């Protein structure tokens, strides 16, 4: 737990610094050239999207973020629009980290599109790997109970206060326990990537639902 806190605080420190840097960067926005993504062809090659789809995505992206990068605050604001009832800040934070693969503190269009490509057009293994990385907050290759609890609590936060049936305080914990019951094969208290993928492939529900989001664009 202390380790988690330490790594978390370290990350937040870094993010604070980068955020502050971003803020200063924002002030200098006039003089600094906005970030421009790599060429369309290159992106098309790297992702599973067609040119038209990339164009549509970029237009939406650029409209919201004219400077070409999304920082965490904007990310949280955008995500909060979709879930007005609850508090999305923690989950959005984890999501931001998952998108920001280079840990630069801001999401560029390439990161955005890569992640979307995996999530929408990737193989099952790729999707599950991405999800594993989302859950693995400290990127140590293992999901432990604390990380999972954080994630689950963040997800429940998004529900807001008014739910049916009412949310009890130990619901996240129970959820995490059930999860570990399923995923942790060797009962060592952590879930590795292989355990995760294996367990998910065994679960019919999960496999089926992974197909659901194919045609989002």
């Amino acid at each position, binding site marked *: 737990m202390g380790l988690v806190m330490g790594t978390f605080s370290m990350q937040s420190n870094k993010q604070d610094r980068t955020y502050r840097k971003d803020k200063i960067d924002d002030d200098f926005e006039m003089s600094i050239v906005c970030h421009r993504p790599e060429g369309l062809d290159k992106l098309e090659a790297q992702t599973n999207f067609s040119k*038209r789809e990339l*164009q*549509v*995505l970029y*237009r*939406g*992206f650029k*409209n*919201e973020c004219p400077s070409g990068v999304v920082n965490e605050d904007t990310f949280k604001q*955008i*995500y909060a*629009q*979709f879930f*007005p009832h609850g508090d999305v800040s923690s989950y959005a934070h984890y*999501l931001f980290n*998952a998108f920001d693969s280079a840990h630069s503190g801001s999401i560029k269009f390439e990161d*955005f599109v890569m*992640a*979307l490509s995996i*999530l*929408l057009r990737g193989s099952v293994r790729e*999707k*599950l790997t*991405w*999800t594993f990385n*989302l*859950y693995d907050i400290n990127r140590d290759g293992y999901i432990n109970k604390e990380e999972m609890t954080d*994630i*689950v609590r963040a*997800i429940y936060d998004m529900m807001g206060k008014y739910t049916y049936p009412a949310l009890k305080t130990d619901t996240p914990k129970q*959820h995490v326990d*059930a*999860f570990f019951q399923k*995923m942790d094969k060797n009962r060592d208290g952590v879930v590795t990537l292989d355990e*995760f993928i294996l367990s*998910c492939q065994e679960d019919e*529900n*999960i496999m*089926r*639902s*992974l197909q*659901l*989001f194919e*045609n*989002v*664009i």
Partner: protein
Amino acid sequence: MAAGVATWMPFARAAAVGWLPLAQQTMPKPPVDKTSRSDEILFVNVSGLRFQTWKNTLDRYPDTLLGSSEKEFFYNEETQEYFFDRDPEMFRHILNFFRTGKLHYPRHECIQAFEEELAFYGIIPEIIGDCCMEEYRDRKKENQERLAEDTEAENAGDAPLPPDATLRDKLWRAFENPHTSTMALVFYYVTGFFIAVSVIANVVETVPCRPLKGSVKDLPCGEKFSVAFSCLDTACVLIFSCEYLMRLYAAPSRCDFARSVMSVIDVVAILPFYIGLVMPENEEVSGAFVTLRVFRVFRIFKFSRHSQGLRILGCTLQACASELGFLLFSLTMAVIIFATVMFYAEKGTKGTTFSSIPASFWYTIVTMTTLGYGDMVPDSIAGKIFGSICSLSGVLVIALPVPVIVSNFARIYHQNQRADKMRAQQKVRQARIRMAKKGATNAFLQHKEDGGLQGGDSDSTALCVKNRSAFEHQHHHLLQCLEKTTNHEFTDEVTYSEVCMMDSVGFRTSRSTSLSSQQGATTTCCSRRSKRRAIRLANSTVSVSRGSVQELATLHITKTPVGTQYPQSRSNLNARTEDLKLNCDDYTAAIISIPTPPANTPDESLPNSPAIPGILRNSRSSTYNTQETVKISSL
């Protein structure tokens, strides 16, 4: 949800993959989007200015015209674009709203035009961005005030009363708008005169006159000529009471009227007299009664009905009530402070006039308003120092609220000026608009005169056609159909008023009255016509008027004669009306219901037919085809 983030929906849905391993239940099926998802560029043509935008941009706001399927109504298949016949400059702002999500108000545009455009495109003005909201609200308020003024001016009662107005309504109108009728004007001036007389009498009453014979002391004129003055007073009070009672009777809402300021002033002005009547000749009571006579001076406020400037002043004071209140409050504070200080400063001086703090109030006020009577003067050094501070601060305290009051007065004064000017110009404006509108109706009547009624040969129609457009053709045809349907005909204002007059006068050959009525009614562009009629009348013994159409419904001239004569007759009309003789064999008393300009003068051979309002139709000269005339021989 801000529509801008609608484009991030794919991202949000993709991110939902992260929940899947945790899900304890099966996920619901995703919605199937049947519409084509490929984004395309739409062309929007607004009065020739071509805009292009992505379909997604417009889809952001699905409850507007452009975002919903309503725009399909404007789709032009041939040019493959959406065509709107609206202002292209404004459309720029509308489209920017879709693009950026923020609506801006263009400062140089008229606010009503802008609001109309917004209403057309289905955008509510409340979403104007903060940067432009202030300006928008200010302009809107200004516009609304101006419109309220205009409608108020219109409804102010310059419009003629409905014919079924009761005596009460008429009376009220006469009181409120004295310039509407001469009686009201007379009344207005008479009351004004008597107010002046009453006030002057009150003043002169107290002037010392030469004493009576045999006495030394100067008498005030009131006592010397007490009979004369009391008669005058009684007369004035009687007139004022009558006026008040009449106003009370005529007021549409008596309670409101009784509560209004003017009515209170009226009552206060006449009350002392009546109280004096009922008061017994008691010594001590009459002393109090004498002070009541002071209230007679309130009669001067009755002048505010007669003077607009006074009313404006009253309005200003009302509007500046808060500033005046502040002035009063700050003055009171300063007075109390300085009075206290001066009292204690002068306490030591022997025989000082500052006997108490309230006594010092007088000094403070006189000093602060820089009057400086000099009846109370500080002697001690401290007193003098504080006295000078008092006078300096007085200047400041009084000078502060004054600009606010002045600016308020200026604003209200200018508003009134503008309202007056607007009212004066309104009449001219309305008259011009009416004339322009008349042009359209007259075109139809003119068209009928010109012989458009005949199905006719092309030769004649060629001349009659003049410059009428296809639209006019269709319009005239429509009006003709209506005439045929109702068995009535269109006529113009002058003739209609003539008929009304005729009906009211009772079918008399009142040449003079109809003449005068025509001359009076000649404000339209048909003056030429009425002039002709006037000339006709001068020579005729039969009063001419446009048909009381009900009587003459059976009559009709279906065809007009050959068209070539028209120009000839017209020119003849203008030249020598006397030369055109009426072919009287054809008409005994020809009653024709079509309103064509009667050109010829009916001459003496026409028998006098007083009983029938004859309408002479002589627009054509002798070549008028009689077989086409339905005659009624009435004699």
